[in-house]
């Protein structure tokens, strides 16, 4: 018996050499997680109930089928370290520069030019409860990938005003005991909404000037829509088939935000006129910790009049357009952590 508070987790901040080669301990960091559940492994059995010739319709035998690994959420307060990891592993094309702090410039990889085709970098995930001779849980999941993420900014105090989460997938390959001694937990450099230093959507600056008090909240998300990774030769674990690749499908990038309505609000006009413009969200903690997301070309799909806590608001659904010159989105993260996704 163990309290879930004993669960400790770490994962590769460096990428694996390939999908089946786990991270070594030097490339793994340890973090806390707001998700209170461990990552479950779900081996699936099948039976012979559909087979004719037994004399009845009932199953008589079990067969090993496959590992049906559920997605797993890593939920964190936004920090420079975690955002650099999240964006790098989910988008795929990463440029790392600097000698400390380090600057990561990240854009979505293109299938036509990505060195690994439609596959993103892989990482290992370690979860442990009382690792050692009498461990309750000690395993390393190999070949994990980022299916998507969510980033939310809202009007509230403290760390909860800037949060993000990663949705992870795994092939089913694992090793137990992990053989990993997790390092001390990383102390992330976290952001909150008070640290926003740029907040412009489609020509409206919501940080200063006439629209400086309009902004209420923003939710952005990325989805890689991975294709199923079972194929001939994809591999086995404990006699169960596992996935051997995660290839992105039709990726989606969603942004919604809520602003207060005021005289002269231009959001509805921008929708009607199909006006497009860039969108920039920047959080700056200090010279060594910042995050900036530039959506190169945003239009509005829906502008809906609403009410947020008694204040008249508009909920705006953006359409993120692929700009012929600058692409879809560029993320820049400055952080003290080196070698993320390297």
């Amino acid at each position, binding site marked *: 018996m163990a309290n879930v508070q004993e669960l400790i987790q770490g994962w590769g901040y460096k990428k694996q050499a390939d999908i089946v080669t786990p991270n070594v301990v030097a490339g793994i960091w340890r973090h806390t997680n707001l998700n209170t559940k461990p990552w479950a492994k779900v081996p699936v059995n099948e039976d012979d109930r559909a087979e004719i010739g037994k004399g009845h319709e009932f199953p008589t035998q079990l067969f090993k089928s496959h590992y049906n690994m559920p997605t797993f959420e890593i939920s964190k307060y936004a920090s420079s370290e975690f955002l650099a990891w999240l964006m790098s592993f989910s988008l795929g094309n*990463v*440029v790392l520069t600097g000698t400390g702090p380090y600057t990561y410039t990240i854009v979505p990889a293109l299938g036509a030019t*990505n060195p690994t085709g439609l596959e993103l970098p892989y990482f290992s995930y370690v979860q442990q409860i009382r690792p050692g001779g009498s461990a309750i849980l000690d395993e390393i999941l190999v070949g994990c990938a980022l299916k998507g993420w969510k980033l939310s900014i809202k009007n509230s105090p403290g760390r909860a005003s800037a949060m993000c989460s990663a949705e992870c997938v795994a092939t089913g390959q694992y090793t137990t005991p992990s053989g990993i001694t997790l390092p001390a937990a990383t102390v992330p450099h976290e952001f909150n909404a008070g640290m926003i230093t740029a907040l412009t959507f489609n020509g409206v600056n919501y940080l200063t000037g006439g629209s400086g008090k309009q902004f209420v909240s923003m939710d952005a998300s990325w989805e890689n829509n991975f294709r199923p990774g079972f194929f001939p030769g994809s591999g086995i674990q404990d006699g169960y088939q596992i996935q051997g690749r995660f290839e992105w499908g039709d990726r989606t990038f969603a942004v919604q935000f809520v602003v207060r309505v005021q005289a002269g609000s231009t959001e509805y006009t921008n929708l009607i006129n199909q006006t497009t413009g860039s969108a920039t969200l920047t959080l700056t903690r200090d010279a060594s910790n910042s995050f900036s997301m530039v959506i190169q070309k945003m239009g509005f799909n829906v502008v809906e009049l609403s009410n947020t806590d008694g204040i008249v608001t508009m909920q705006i659904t953006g359409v993120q357009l692929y700009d012929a010159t600058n692409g879809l989105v560029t993320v*820049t993260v400055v952080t003290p952590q080196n070698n993320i996704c390297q």
Partner: protein
Amino acid sequence: MADVAYMRSPHTGEIRQVEVTPEALSPLMSQGWTQVPAPAEQKPATPVEEEH
């Protein structure tokens, strides 16, 4: 002096030194250019024979 990155074209193999700003990197990265090590860090294409 601004940081620079060395970027390689996915089509021609051309390597270009680029200032690390979103404005300079975005057009290249969105066309599939990827980072490569600085020229001094790159290993020679063929092994160099030692002199005896």
